[in-house]
């Protein structure tokens, strides 16, 4: 039932990646936001922070639970979505659009190869993967 856009890459920790040139836009999937429920707080890194693939980059909190965010790629944070920290509902309403979290300039494209495509992620999420 959750939306899984075909043109994105996905991590098993339920982040999505969209490549725009050498910049990776990262957010959480529709499946993830639905599992969390109403999101009330986001802790996101400042621009300039260097992230390794699979490293912790932030935290998302809903009324029900706290969940950690892991970077699907390696690189430098170049932008954080400043609009959503006070309008966290955008992550629930539009997880692949206005609810994006951070933009990262890739230091390596190798990480992308290990990410799931839409079909594999959909299968993973449907099986209750986590």
């Amino acid at each position: 039932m959750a939306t899984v856009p075909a043109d994105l890459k996905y991590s098993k920790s339920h982040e999505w990646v969209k490549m725009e040139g050498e910049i990776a836009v990262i957010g959480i999937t529709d499946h993830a936001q639905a599992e969390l429920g109403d999101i009330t707080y986001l802790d996101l890194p400042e621009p300039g922070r260097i992230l390794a693939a699979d490293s912790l980059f932030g935290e998302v909190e809903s009324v029900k639970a706290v969940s950690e965010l892991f970077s699907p790629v390696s690189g430098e944070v170049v932008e954080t979505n400043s609009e959503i920290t006070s309008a966290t509902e955008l992550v629930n309403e539009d997880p692949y659009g206005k609810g994006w979290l951070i933009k990262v300039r890739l230091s390596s494209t190798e990480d992308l190869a290990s990410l799931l495509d839409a079909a594999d992620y959909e299968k993973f999420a449907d099986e209750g993967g986590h």
Partner: protein
Amino acid sequence: MDTILRQTPLYAAHLHLKARMVEFAGWAMPVLYTGILEEARAVRNGAGMFDISHMGRIQVEGEGATALLQHLTSNDVSALKPSEAQYSLLTNPSGGIIDDIIVYRQGEETYLVVINASNTDKDLTWIAEHNSGGVRVVNETAETAMIAVQGPQAPAIVARIAGQPSLLELGRFHYETGEIGGGTATFCRTGYTGEDGFELIVPAETAEKVWQLFLDAGVMACGLGARDALRIEAGYPLYGHEIDDTTNPVEAGLMWAVKIDKPDFIGRESITSAKSSPALRRLVGLSTQERLQPRQGYTIYVGEEPVGEVTSGIFSPTRGTSIAMGYVAARYARTGTQVEIGIRDRRAKATVVPKKNLLA
């Protein structure tokens, strides 16, 4: 973990609404239908309803019923007239709170006692241990359903659907019997949300019909998530959070439900001495300007000194910032005291406020 969960008479109705079901006190209960924030706001702005059929409903009747309840509970049941209910506590000899309950007086020696689902077995055992006079104590939970309809529009909707305009005149903690959805009903002007409304007890057989009538009238189905958010906003305690067998009514701020001068009841001496001794800690409200949510067990600080612990916290759907309740050392319990709450690796500034003013 494969225990079979109990189902309320509204279980099928919850599945039909695609509720997210969770285990709560051995029951399969809806935690949310569409979203906790939306559901909580519906109760504040219009009307919402909750399936609270999991709560224990215990009939206590026969000669000696009044004396038994006077001995077991902290409030004064003799002050109740038939058609009235009261909030009360079951207390143990150390003054600890076994459960918080609502006692409905139905006759001279006839009562209905509504208790927490998580405490049903414990309470029944406790009552039985003290029932030397052979008072009839019957667990009627399975025979009935209980639905709370809450919100500024709730009284008018309930009165209209029941065709019982007198309900609008009913005082708080008063109840009336009548009919709704083709069956009998008890309508009590009570709730756990801080809003006006009713808690209805109906036969299990007509529960689905009653639920559907309210849905058709635009009442939003609300889950346990919204119920918890609303009760925290209202500053109401929840067993297992603000109160338990080791907390006493003095520190929990529940002395309004303790009639210390009534004839003897279990725990009276301990509560009296707790009252006159300098209280070690107090339950307070904590108001923040943050979105980070304090949760049960988080430490409350003044500077670097730990001064207490959060019992419940939530991102307030009504305020749009986080609020909490917690116990602090008595000297930090004064309204306006500035404290900090340790939230994982961060600190959130909070102000001590009266529990009743968490939404102010």
